[in-house]
């Protein structure tokens, strides 16, 4: 039965939390009610990426792009658009010109993007293997099994220049070669899906939207490295991704695409899912393997590298979800094609989770070499609320801030490292000029300190000391000596920590000390938070000249600590004020001032 219209509903975790599942069910129900059941196929897809505007519903073939859809809109979309051919105008995405966009190509958010990893996200039903196959799915696996040797597979990766997307950027072909060459009767392939950076959800979306791409790539990895067993280590907080992976594994096993004697080739490869309990450190590969083995997730020293002695002491290669998702495309289109995208040292694309003070937050995939300005201002649509850009944090809690001066730097592994930050797994948090850098750093440190495994002394103790000093700054009790202490501890942590978590924990501190020394000084010497975010350093005062005594502020104050007669200027009792800012928000006369 051929359908002539397709109604794609985003089924990513973000949109599902905005009731996308209900939208989907309402659409199906409405189609049936209007007798469109056989002509319209409603499909629940993976993430469209444009999360700022979710939930998204897209109608094909018209390319109508509905945004911020609510469950109750389903009836209108079906009755008006699908039945009568009249698009529901108020739901259509409108760009800067105000005209309704005609599909992604007409939307600025998508224009500079290039979707290799996310090629199927928002397009196919991730729970239907045939849709994956229809878009060249498992073609690469067939090609590898029947026309290529393991060496040729690795050579293709070498030509492609693919580097690990988990953060460190280690050449994938070299990792695979080392594991292939390591002696051992049993080898393992691990997919690291323990994504944990605050605000990052690249891997989750890939797995939710296109799980087969990872399964196919892992099987190719098994063939290339001589491994017969794969594990996907994924955090239990990703239930939807886990569910879709399980569905996908069941389907591919039923079709003989994983398991024994794959496609009759004689090659065996099976995959198991292992759930992580959510410790950030379990994304570190040695800790991850400890966790799979049932032990406490704590890093072990390298060497030995996993390629020599990994899971249960066997040669093991660990790649991140995004790295895997690239591989079938590289096999199909050739390493040279992939290498034609990107910069001299970093090939292909990179997915970023763009969040923070940005107009278009979402998941973006851009060719390596795209500038930060393009990502933040063209794709991201600039800073929210018309505020100025202050800095962007890349590389998650381990990264560093990048300031205005460097917005035109083409992004790749090396350029970000040179700026004192890092690629990391792809978190990108934008700060506006009302963000307090000291407060932001405190947030990151708090995360890293919380997530330290506690094994090595520099990270376990040093991180906490750094955080305590940052707390002093935000309370106005810091001293100039504290700055030196931050640097001393930070340097020791970078040099003497056991794993990357500890080595990079001081990065946000050290990089902001370099780029925003004046903000630190304001907190220490003037006991002021220029951005007004550090509540202990803020004073709310009522300007008696402006106050007309309307009493709104006094009524909004939750303490209450604002006193004054009607039509007489009010006053804030500073001893009682909790600095919540309710009075500031409430005053229509600009009489409440922040100092």
């Amino acid at each position, binding site marked *: 039965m051929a359908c002539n219209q397709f109604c794609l509903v985003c089924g990513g975790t973000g949109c599902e939390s905005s009731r996308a599942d209900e939208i989907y069910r309402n659409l199906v129900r409405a189609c049936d009610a209007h007798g469109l059941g056989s002509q319209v196929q409603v499909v629940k897809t993976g993430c469209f990426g444009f999360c700022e505007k979710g939930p998204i519903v897209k109608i094909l073939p018209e390319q109508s792009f509905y945004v911020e859809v609510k469950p109750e809109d389903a009836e209108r979309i079906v009755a008006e658009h699908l039945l009568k051919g009249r698009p529901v105008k108020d739901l259509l995405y409108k760009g800067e010109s105000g005209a309704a966009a005609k599909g992604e190509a007409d939307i600025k958010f998508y224009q500079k993007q290039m979707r290799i990893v996310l090629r199927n996200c928002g397009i196919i039903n991730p729970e239907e293997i045939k849709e994956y196959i229809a878009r060249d799915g498992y073609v690469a696996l067939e090609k590898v099994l029947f026309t290529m040797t393991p060496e040729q597979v690795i050579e293709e990766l070498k030509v492609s220049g693919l580097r690990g997307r988990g953060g460190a950027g280690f050449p994938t072909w070299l990792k695979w070669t080392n594991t292939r060459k390591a002696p051992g009767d049993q080898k393992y392939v691990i997919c690291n899906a323990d994504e944990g950076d605050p605000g990052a959800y690249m891997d989750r979306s890939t797995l939710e939207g296109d799980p087969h791409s990872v399964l196919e790539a892992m099987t190719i990895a098994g063939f290339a490295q001589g491994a017969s067993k794969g594990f996907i280590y994924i955090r239990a907080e990703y239930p939807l991704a886990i569910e879709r992976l399980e569905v996908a594994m069941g389907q591919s096993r039923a079709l003989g695409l994983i398991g024994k004697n794959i496609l009759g080739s004689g090659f065996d490869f099976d995959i198991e899912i292992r759930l992580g309990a959510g410790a950030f450190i379990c994304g570190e590969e040695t800790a991850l393997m400890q966790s799979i083995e049932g032990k406490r997730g704590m890093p072990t020293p390298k060497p030995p590298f996993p390629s020599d002695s990994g899971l249960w002491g066997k040669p093991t290669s660990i790649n991140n979800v995004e790295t895997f998702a690239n591989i079938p495309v590289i096999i199909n289109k050739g390493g040279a094609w992939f290498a034609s995208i990107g910069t001299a040292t970093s090939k292909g694309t990179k997915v970023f989770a763009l969040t923070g003070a940005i107009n278009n937050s979402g998941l973006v995939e851009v060719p390596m070499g795209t500038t930060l300005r393009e990502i933040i201002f063209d794709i991201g649509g600039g800073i929210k609320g018309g505020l100025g850009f202050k800095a962007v944090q890349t590389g998650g809690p381990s990264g560093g801030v990048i300031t205005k001066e460097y917005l035109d730097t083409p992004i790749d592994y090396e350029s970000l490292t040179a700026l004192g930050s890092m690629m990391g797994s792809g978190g990108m948090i934008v700060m506006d000029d009302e963000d307090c850098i000291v407060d932001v750093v405190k947030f990151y440190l708090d995360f890293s300190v919380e997530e330290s495994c506690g094994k090595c*002394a520099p990270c376990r103790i040093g991180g906490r000391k750094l955080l305590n000093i940052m707390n002093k700054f935000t309370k106005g009790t810091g001293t100039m000596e504290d700055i030196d202490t931050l640097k001393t501890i930070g340097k*020791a942590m970078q040099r003497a920590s*056991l794993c990357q978590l500890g080595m990079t924990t001081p990065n946000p501190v050290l990089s902001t000390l370099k780029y925003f020394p004046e903000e630190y000084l304001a907190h220490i010497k003037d006991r002021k938070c220029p951005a007004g975010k550090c509540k202990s350093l803020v004073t709310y005062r009522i300007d008696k000249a402006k106050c007309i005594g309307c009493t709104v502020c006094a009524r909004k104050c939750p303490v209450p600590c604002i006193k004054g007669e009607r039509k007489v200027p009010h006053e804030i009792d500073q001893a009682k004020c909790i600095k919540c800012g309710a009075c500031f928000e409430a005053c229509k006369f600009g009489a409440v001032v922040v100092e």
Partner: protein
Amino acid sequence: MKTITCQINGVPVTVPEGTTILKAALEADVKIPTLCAHPDLKAWGACGICIVRPEKSPRMVRSCTTTVVEGMNYITHDPDIVETRRTVLELIMSNHPNDCLRCARNGCCELQNICAEFGIREVPFESGIRDLPEDNSTPSVQLHPAKCISCGRCALVCQQLQDVWALEFLYRGDRTRIAPSGDATLAESPCIKCGQCSAHCPVGAITEVDETKKLWDAIREKDKHVVVQIAPAVRVALGEEFGLEPGTIITGKIYAALRRLGADKVFDTNLSADLTIMEEASEFVERFARGKGELPLITSCCPSWVDYLEKYHDDMIPNFSTAKSPMMMMGAMVKTYYAKKAGIDPEKVFSVAIMPCTAKKYEISRSEDMKSSGTLDVDLSITTRELARMIKQAGIDILRLKDEEADSPLGVYTGAGVIFGATGGVMEAALRTAYNFVTGENLGKVELEEVRGMDGVKTATIDIKGTKVRVAVAHGMANVKDIMNRVRKAKKEGAERPFDFIEVMACRGGCVAGGGQPYGSTDEVRAKRIKGIYADDGAQTIRCSHDNPAIKAIYSEFLGKPLSDKAHELLHTHYVPRPLWIK
């Protein structure tokens, strides 16, 4: 073996492939400071003190876990490295209670030593000392978690060397602490009281339960008759506390020192080791030659092993020798045989054991069987370390004392008794006597080299005039599982049993490296102490337990014969399955 030539600060060194920088540096006369590394354990790089820098590399690496690479020059100290080590030390210090003067490890603390070397005069960081409760739940070891520097040695020892898993890392980040899982107390955990955690702890976070005051108190009481026994392994290690090389035998000086401390009688556990052999060898012959009881027979003189078996291998209880340990046999003899002979009320006797072991503190009251004289057969068991402290408290210059003899009737011992202190010793001693019991004559060569040495599991077949006895010896609790599983498998499949006689000691090397011995047990030290043990054996004119005249007297005057009813009443015990976790 392939070798690697690298440089340490420009000095070429050639070492076997796989050697760590830490070890290679020793070849170039550089001892890189460490806190968490220990020769007994696989290095795991927790403390961050031993960092070095491969020349031209911007990164520092841990020398304890990084193996040398051909041609590389490793810089083990420069201003940056020293500064970083100092900062890490200061960080550790900032979370460590500043109470050295009243710490059990005052003067023998690895952190204290390293801080002295670095000249730490102040800690520039805010204090993060945690208020954590002590664990005093066992009679053997105490946990002082506030002092823990999380080096992990104790947990690794407990898990890797001992396979007990009583200690685990709990919580994360700077809330990490090492304790039994689920925040149980040690007594509720599978802990076997071996004390290896305390022997490996670099600081005062895990210590033996100090009971020296109890001994001083007993000495103070005029009507108490204080009788002290010393274990085989004590004599080759106590000297280390007074500057002697490990393995130096100072038996005569220990007897003398004990008398100067106030002991009324000094006996030797070596003699009761001979008694244990009489009972255990008889038990073996009963089972092996006469088919009365389960085989293989498994030795039971190590209280940690007894505890471990009752917890982890309770299906093997029928195979366990019912003979008590030498310490408990001595206790029983002191309060019955000796008290009667000397005309002393057993109630007035205070029976003390000097042991290399923390588990012995648990053993003295492990069951009602330990009161065969009607009251506790051993009132107090203190470790070698505690005895050393008492001698120092008294100001006794033990090294200058003239050698003395142990007291009659429980002082004469044989070579067989002394070798109980080393792994394989009980087996060797038992076979010397079993051979005699079966054949009626003594072995021509009493040294059984096959069961000596530091291999974790030693197996041998001993020929008793044509009858083959298959024996196995294991030390270090983690080495036991395979042997037990082989026995179990054979039993299950109805196959021939792999062994007839098995000796197990919980601690690596045997009692010479027990949890109560002077700090610093490594394989090098163990080897020296063991050498001392065998030297003492070789120096004895009587080498077999059954030839000990004092033993003969005990049987003829008091017990009758081995395995007699009286012997059973006083010298044997029984075992019960115990849960791993009590909660």
